[in-house]
């Protein structure tokens, strides 16, 4: 299915979603996430593969990004949720896609996004007792010296 067709189908079901300017991503409010996840997992869209979860720190907000892929229909979807930078919280998708378990742990580890009802909410790449969230823009590592900008 084409991206526009997918969007029209989703818009009919969830009137509150929107398209992001400049990209083909779909933006949903964070309360909708679980319901939205269950809907796109089943027919007619069959997004059976949660391919990638990540975040972008835009200082005034944090963009949470999910990339889905459908094996039978071979189409993909980029989903975004805008979160506030102070103590961002969102429901976990690990009950629907098992791959979300590690991908969400990584996002928590590097960005400090808390996933509610996550089966294993620990850090994954950094040591378990690490302080701070390294990929936040306001994070400063103890011995990090930035290269001079060109």
């Amino acid at each position, binding site marked *: 299915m084409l991206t526009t067709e997918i969007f029209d189908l989703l818009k009919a079901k969830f009137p509150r979603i929107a398209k992001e300017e*400049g*990209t083909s991503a779909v933006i949903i409010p964070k309360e909708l996430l679980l319901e939205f996840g269950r809907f796109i997992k089943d027919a007619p869209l069959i997004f*059976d*593969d*949660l*391919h*990638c979860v*990540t975040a*972008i*720190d835009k200082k005034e907000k944090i963009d949470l*990004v999910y*990339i889905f892929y459908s*094996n039978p229909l*071979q189409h993909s979807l*980029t989903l975004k949720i805008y979160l506030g930078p102070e103590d961002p919280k969102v429901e976990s998708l690990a009950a629907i*896609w*098992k*791959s979300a*378990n*590690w*991908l969400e742990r*990584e996002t928590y580890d*590097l960005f400090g996004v808390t996933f509610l009802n996550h089966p294993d909410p620990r*850090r*994954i*790449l*950094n*040591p378990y007792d690490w302080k701070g969230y*390294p*990929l936040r823009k306001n994070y400063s*590592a103890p011995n990090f010296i*930035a*290269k001079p*900008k*060109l």
Partner: protein
Amino acid sequence: MADLDIKEKKDIFTEEFLINMGPQHPSTHGVLSLELKLDGEMVLECTPHIGYLHRSFEKLAENRTYTQFIPFTDRLDYVASMNNNLGYCMAVENLLKLDITDRAKYIRVIVAELNRIASHLIAIGTFAQDLGAFATPLFYCFREREKIVDIFNEICGNRLTYNYIRIGGVQSDLPKGIEEKIKNFIKYMRSKIDEYDWLLTYNVIFLARAKNIGLLRKDIAINYSVTGPNLRASGVKRDLRKDRPYLVYDKFEFNVPVGVNGDAWDRYKVRIEEMRQSLKIVEQALGSLPQGDPTVKTGRVHKPAAGEAYFRTENPRGELGFYIVSDGSAYPYRLKIRAPSFSNLAVLPELIKDAKIADIVCISGSLDILMGEIDR
């Protein structure tokens, strides 16, 4: 026996116990630590601990220009550097909306497929080593890999971290006479793959050790977002080179081998077949290699317009994705690496559960994980 003082039957009992496998274990292919909960010989639970090789590439990328980051991609999946260079450069070219020349596309296909063979050779060699076929298959595989590494050495001057594919093309054109060498290698390699079949694939001991071990069902594999040969071994025909052809893959004829059961042997067998298909692709690419300039002249500093791009390529280990966000400056605002091994390792606890402790090495070896790209 007298001092044991066993009065009743309830005094004799078995106990679950925890052991740590790794991070220095030789068969964990790097620094992977598995915390195993055992009941005798059976594994009840497995918790992987990763991050021992975490070098924070994603943070470092924010302080490097787009070109400066290419050598870092070499160190992600260090046995398939060409494929990593390719994935990154294509993501940046997507962001820049830069078209490259036909010759560059063909050269990229040739080096990427040769590197796929080299990577699969290590995968099957170490897998056989993990099963206890000590040294012989590994040395055979390294003998063949050496020929590919020599070809790469001639092409770009490096033997492991190539840094050959650049934004806008490749570092330099193919040297004179290398086509002949690659053609000779294809002929040589074909006979050697037949030799592997004879030596290893249908070997009774090998079959007994790898058949019906670590069964990965199709739906579980998809749910864990497993990709690459591991997914295809479970019977899912998904290959980006066919489904969403990039470069010039749509011009070549090749099959996508798939497995039947999704056991360790199938995962091995898919890799063997993929090497044959890669040889086929390289042969066709060499036959129709266009003349011309392999590089587009671009500046050293690239400043893509603000926006984002996500690009996936089919790596030897699965689908490697680069998610790049640009804010219009010479540095990526955010660079996310979606490493295939990361998701492939996440399924390991599922496979190891209720397996025998002796099969752990077989299962993790057949998944062909690489810690360099998991920890990043």
